[in-house]
């Protein structure tokens, strides 16, 4: 077990591509995305996800502690422009090595 950082981003689904790109650029290759998240933030609630493109995505990415600074620098301008929130916390990773021949 060793310490990694967990990044949680909640943003409108149309920002997804841009955010993943900027995570990638920051060297954070892995991520998980949950779609169809409804919610309420500064811009008011969103309930009619399907109809009005107001659905959010919840992006989770675990990364090395030293990557956090770059991530924040890259993601913040996006959130500043289009809205959304980003949080960082500490978690322990359970290392696993995939026995995939192709790796």
């Amino acid at each position, binding site marked *: 077990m060793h310490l990694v950082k967990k990044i949680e981003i909640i943003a409108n689904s149309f920002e997804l591509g841009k955010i993943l790109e900027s995570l990638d650029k920051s060297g954070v290759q892995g991520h998980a995305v949950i779609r169809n998240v409804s919610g309420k933030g500064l811009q008011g609630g969103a309930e009619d996800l*399907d109809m009005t493109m107001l659905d959010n995505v919840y992006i989770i990415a675990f990364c090395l502690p030293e990557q956090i600074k770059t991530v924040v620098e890259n993601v913040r301008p996006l959130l500043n422009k289009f809205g959304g929130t980003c949080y960082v916390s500490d978690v322990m990773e359970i290392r696993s090595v995939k026995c995939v021949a192709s790796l």
Partner: protein
Amino acid sequence: MDANLIVSNILNPPILFFFLGILAVLVKSDLEIPAPVPKLFSLYLLLAIGFKGGVELIKSGVTQEVVLTLLAAMVMACVVPLYTFFILRIRLDTYDAAAIAATYGSISAVTFITASAFLTELGIDFDGYMVAALALMESPAIIVGLLLVNLFTESEKREFAWSEVLREAFLNSSVFLLVGSLLIGVLTGEHGWQVLEPFTQGMFYGVLTFFLLDMGLVAARRIKDLQKTGFFLITFAILIPIVNAAIGLLIARLIDMPQGNALLFAVLCASASYIAVPAAMRLTVPEANPSLYISTALAVTFPFNIIVGIPLYLYGINLLWR
């Protein structure tokens, strides 16, 4: 006599189910159409009208009438957002005004479909190429809206990625599927129509009905947003459709459109987008408040058009074409 048309419009399953949806929200029933069913239905409706329009377009061919109609459509799509912008600037800042203007310059496919179902109901003919007009009128307002923002805000050099804006305007899923289905209709013609008919025609009315049930739910949930929207915007959302439809009807009369086409054209002018344009605006004018442009289009203009507007515009046609 106008009231008569309204009643005969209301007493149809799609409109009644729209009311049922509104009622469900008002009485706080837990009725809801789970995602992604509405999305599926809206893809289906676009595919079906696009395809049908294409099949009919190839039958009628591209005549002068067609060209004139499409020209008129493009003119209205560019002019409407321009003059509504200045009306909106009376009360709103540039961002909100431009976004709302774009919304009303574009169209609502479901309003169009409801109007065509109404015409079928009354036995009034209309042409398949009106679907091409629908497709043409969806995008220009997005560009106009953005140009307005660029012109009328301090020059902090908004670095718009224009390629992205154009893609959003002309290749968003609604426009893309509609135009694609239209072209496929043109390519496969009568033959393709026959094999797809039970799917694209048989179920069409039923899916529209189901979809309007959901639209009722969605529109009603937005009604409480209208308090924040204010009296000015609500008035705007009812009067502007009438004005736009009137202008549309005058143009239609000028170029001598058949009555059915004229109604559809008026409805296109009168309707406001609540899918494609809002999506584009969030991306290109994030400063604008989405609840303003979505709620007015969805909770005021859409219900107004399908309940009162459609028969009202037909009444206007009865007067003008007499």
